[in-house]
């Protein structure tokens, strides 16, 4: 259990950053919002009384900030556009293609899917975090996966995975 905001930052900032980066699709916004997450943590650290739940606390703040960011940017409309129009080109970089496919998801579905994949939360934890049922979470995650799968059907996964292995 982290005993200071600095330790909490060391342990979790990358996960929070990646979650926000995928939520917003922008590294600069991810940096700003991740900073804001930890500034809020710092402000409330002395009064926070649910020790052991810090990770959920961080992601709750991150989620609220990311959703507010989306509202401010009026990007909701993109989430409801025609999936076929968002199908990716096979020559596109996989990371860009994945981000564009994520951007095309409704924010709620994207959020739940990323909380699972990047936040590492279980279905029940996510349900608790966003105030819904585990069944609804399961359903949203599947919906997000299925939509991403169809949008990314044109991606040359094998070549992309090979490239990633060479780079690493």
């Amino acid at each position, binding site marked *: 259990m982290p005993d200071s905001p600095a330790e909490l930052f060391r342990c979790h900032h990358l996960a929070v950053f990646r979650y926000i980066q995928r939520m917003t699709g922008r590294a600069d916004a991810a940096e700003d919002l991740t900073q804001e997450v930890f500034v809020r943590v710092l402000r409330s650290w002395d009064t926070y009384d649910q020790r052991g739940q810090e990770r959920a606390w961080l992601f709750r703040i991150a989620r609220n900030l990311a959703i507010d960011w989306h509202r401010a940017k009026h990007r909701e409309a993109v989430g409801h556009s025609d999936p076929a129009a968002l199908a990716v080109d096979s020559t596109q970089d996989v990371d860009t293609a994945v981000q564009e496919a994520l951007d095309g998801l409704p924010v709620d579905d994207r959020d739940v899917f990323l909380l699972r994949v990047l936040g590492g939360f279980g279905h029940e934890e996510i349900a608790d975090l966003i105030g819904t049922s585990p069944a609804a979470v399961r359903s949203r995650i*599947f919906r997000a*996966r299925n939509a991403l799968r169809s949008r990314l059907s044109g991606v040359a996964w094998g070549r992309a995975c090979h490239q990633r292995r060479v780079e690493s």
Partner: protein
Amino acid sequence: MTAESGEVLSSLTDGVAVDPDRLEVALGEPGATSMLVEFARLRVAVESVNMPPGEGFYRSMDQKLSPPPVRLGRVRWTQLAAAALVPCAIAMGIWVGRVTAPSPQAGLELAAYCADSRGALYAPGRITAVDNRRVECVLKGEWQPVAR
């Protein structure tokens, strides 16, 4: 592939315990294997965000998360005040010691010659008067302060 079977495969990808009978049905549906493989690929692709935060981000966070700097001005004045108090306290202690030291009693007998802090000699014999000069004298065999 039904939505129910898709959810089962999705949950399996998440490492959630699924009903074995429903899993069997799901895996028996056409396209189940490719769906599982694509879910796994998708997960790897989403996790691999290549760009970490920049140096500016870490610099800024270091400033925000480090404890507030100690106010040197205030510490210096406090230290100076404390340092000034030390000799005052010592001087006060000496003065109090002198004030409360036992006064010589007329009628006591000095056993040997004594010198006070100004060098004045006191001859052995009976003390007949008290002055303000400190002196240590042999009084009946023991050194004791007998005069101020």
